[in-house]
């Protein structure tokens, strides 16, 4: 119950509240104008900037016209017109497929899939996809609907199979993902692992508002198809000072957001706040934790994680997605290959369970702070 309350009451910390922690992005200089924004507002800002800076860019998806079910597209249709910001019919494979076509013609298409849970029908199109189309998928669940043919078979392979005659670099697919406390099977999924298995696309997951704006702008402008998962839990919960200007955070660069010596923790998105709490608790027991935000899962920054584990000798990975076949397995296997002799303990994975995401049982399913803390201790005491 406490963890449940903790989940609901969880808010991103005010800057500087935990020493040594850089949960809050350190992108902007102090002198630049910043504004206190939550995640959906930061994303909204990024979209405004993207549309402003490229007249051949589009934002579309289900319900984006009035601002979207999570308010990420507020004001865009009014400002840029219904020809550039519009609702689509309810069809993820159509949304992604249409976006691929737009990107193939040199446009930037920012597509929203309402829930990543619904991305699967578009899956196939993504494989053919053109990189920089941005789809605004409301939840990663719905993204699975787009997953089957368009994303995997079309988007991801578009440049390669054409011998670089064509590409859909302008495609970015945005989807809210992750647990929200009451989402159940179809509004809570974390499908990132499926996409990490598809050569040709990139997978990006921000942890906070400031990170989200910079990473989203990078994703939109990256010349490859990007699937951008937004932790929906943080849409309103996370508040941060976000620079008002146009800035980008590089892809495929992990960030050490908390330095430590005893164990390396790797995570992404909303899970990092949980992991940070565990790090704080561990510190009280004399364990110094290094926390890394991977940010880009495909292609991922192995070097930063490797350097950290060579220093600490221990690795713990945590993600909401089910443990079996989750992206933690890839990180674990890679680090084992690279750091075997430096490891003091087996790589630990604290992840979601191998069940469909349950409603009543969510608190049992989730990789909670205490599960992580216990794993930190048993790894350190191995």
């Amino acid at each position: 119950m406490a963890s449940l309350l903790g989940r609901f009451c969880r808010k991103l910390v005010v800057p500087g509240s935990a020493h040594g922690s850089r949960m809050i992005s350190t992108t902007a200089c102090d002198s630049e104008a910043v504004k206190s924004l939550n995640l959906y507002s930061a994303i909204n800002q990024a979209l405004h900037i993207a549309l402003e800076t490229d007249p051949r860019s589009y934002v579309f998806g289900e319900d984006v016209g009035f601002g979207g079910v999570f308010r990420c597209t507020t004001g865009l249709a009014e400002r840029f017109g219904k020809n550039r910001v519009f609702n689509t019919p309810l069809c993820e494979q159509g949304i992604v497929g249409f976006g691929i076509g737009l990107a193939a013609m040199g446009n930037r298409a920012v597509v929203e899939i309402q829930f990543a849970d619904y991305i699967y029908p578009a899956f196939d199109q993504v494989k053919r996809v053109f990189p920089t189309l941005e789809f605004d998928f409301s939840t990663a669940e719905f993204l699975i609907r787009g997953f089957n043919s368009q994303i995997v078979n079309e988007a991801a392979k578009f440049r390669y199979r054409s011998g670089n005659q064509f590409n859909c670099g302008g495609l970015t697919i945005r989807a809210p993902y992750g647990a929200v406390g009451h989402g159940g099977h179809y509004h809570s999924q974390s499908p990132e692992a499926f996409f990490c298995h598809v050569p040709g696309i990139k997978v990006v997951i921000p942890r906070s508002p400031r990170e989200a704006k910079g990473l989203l702008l990078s994703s939109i402008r990256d010349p490859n198809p990007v699937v951008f998962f937004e932790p929906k839990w943080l849409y309103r919960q996370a508040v941060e000072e976000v620079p008002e200007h146009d800035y980008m955070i590089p892809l495929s660069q992990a960030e050490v957001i908390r330095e430590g010596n005893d164990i390396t923790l790797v995570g992404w998105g909303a899970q990092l706040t949980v992991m940070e709490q565990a790090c704080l608790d561990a510190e009280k027991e004399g364990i110094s934790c290094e926390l890394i935000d991977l940010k880009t899962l495909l292609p991922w920054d192995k070097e930063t994680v490797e350097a950290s584990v060579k220093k600490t000798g221990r690795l713990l990975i945590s993600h909401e997605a089910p443990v079996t076949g989750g992206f933690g397995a890839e990180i674990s296997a890679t680090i084992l290959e690279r750091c075997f002799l430096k490891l003091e303990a087996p790589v630990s994975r604290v992840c979601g369970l191998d069940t469909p995401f349950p409603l009543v049982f969510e608190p049992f399913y989730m990789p909670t702070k205490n599960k992580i803390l216990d794993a930190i201790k048993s790894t350190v005491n191995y």
Partner: protein
Amino acid sequence: MAQHLKSSSKSILLNILRHNIGFSSPSHASRHLRHNLPHGPLTTRLSPNPITRYCNTMVDTLSSIGSHEDTNSQVMDFPGGKVAFTPEIHFISESNEERVPCYRVLDDNGQQLTNSQFVPVSKEIAVKMYSDMVTLQMMDNIFYEAQRQGRLSFYATAFGEEAINIASAAALSPDDVIFPQYREPGVLLWRGFTLQEFANQCFGNKSDYGKGRQMPVHYGSNKLNYFTVSATIATQLPNAVGAAYSLKMDEKDACAVTFFGDGGSSEGDFHAALNFAAVMEAPVLFICRNNGWAISTPTSDQFRSDGVVVKGRAYGIRSIRVDGNDALAMYSAVHEAREMAIREHRPILIEALTYRVGHHSTSDDSTRYRSADEIEWWNKARNPLSRFRTWVESNGWWSDEAESDLRSKIKKEMLEAIRVAEKTEKPNLNHMFSDVYDVPPLNLREQELLVRQAIKSHPQDYPSDVPL
């Protein structure tokens, strides 16, 4: 008594239905009978039986709730617009009484039908059309044989569909972007893709624009606005819609054109694409090559509608059914469709009826599921080449001499193209790793190193014709 009650409760239901849900009436005549009581099973209402009168009263009360002041009003505003009511319960038939007729200009013998409407073609265009149809057929023959001889890994012919291929291409402009399925190389041919370029892709050599990554017949040319073939069925349809939207937004005098087969019309992407195209008002032509077969699946196992043309209306899309083996009809239909698409910002669906004379591919032997006689009949009696040739010759634009000159020229070119393609070296190994992304990421650079080490250790495991 029980029976009587049963029928009156049925009539209560029917009365409620009648007044609250609009069913389409089966014929125009019955609409005029709107104010009269219907005949048939509802005649129980006409009886003075007290139970029936109760039904009448109930129905009147219901019908006055939420309707317009004028209680005789037969129109209601639902979201989506006004719709007329009908007192008759009638289901729209699953099909029209007659199938949608098929537009054709030439009869089976290549004689122009009287009163046929068509877009005229000049001698130059007609001769090029016919020549390209011959070239396509010969190219297919020779590549097919090459595969049989083991010189090619795979091939798929377009036998029987030469008119669809060439005539549609001829009716388009070079700026129209093509999203093919895989049986439309004739469009590339029309636009100037050379036999050598076809051969290079089929042999996957270093001159292949696709850099040896895909199976034969997966052609693509950005120069000729022909997007690279992907084997997945119908995935190109929604892509074409997005591309068309882009053309519209950029105000280009061009449309997107996408091809697919009867089998492709069953895919989800077909429905997604048509719906999107209509809603987005995208200038895209959906050209269905209904050739009767999806590998071994006949159309009777594919859908139960009157072919594909009737599906257009379901999405609000203007559609036409054409004789796909009639080059003039194809040309005219595509020409008109293109005009409408670009001028009016709308999609058009063209169902080209034809027959797949060849096997699905070199991996298929279609005599296992259809009769050799049937194939032969279509090949001989309904051949698109001979029909068009007759018409071209009737204008004095072609001759036996021209035919044999062309055929010997093409044969020589083809054999030379194959000879050259076969001995051209394969693409360099580094092309396995390029173009996955715009720039190879670290993991791919690492993997290339690992592969090169493996090659050094075990060269016998690897083909010697791939340069390192």
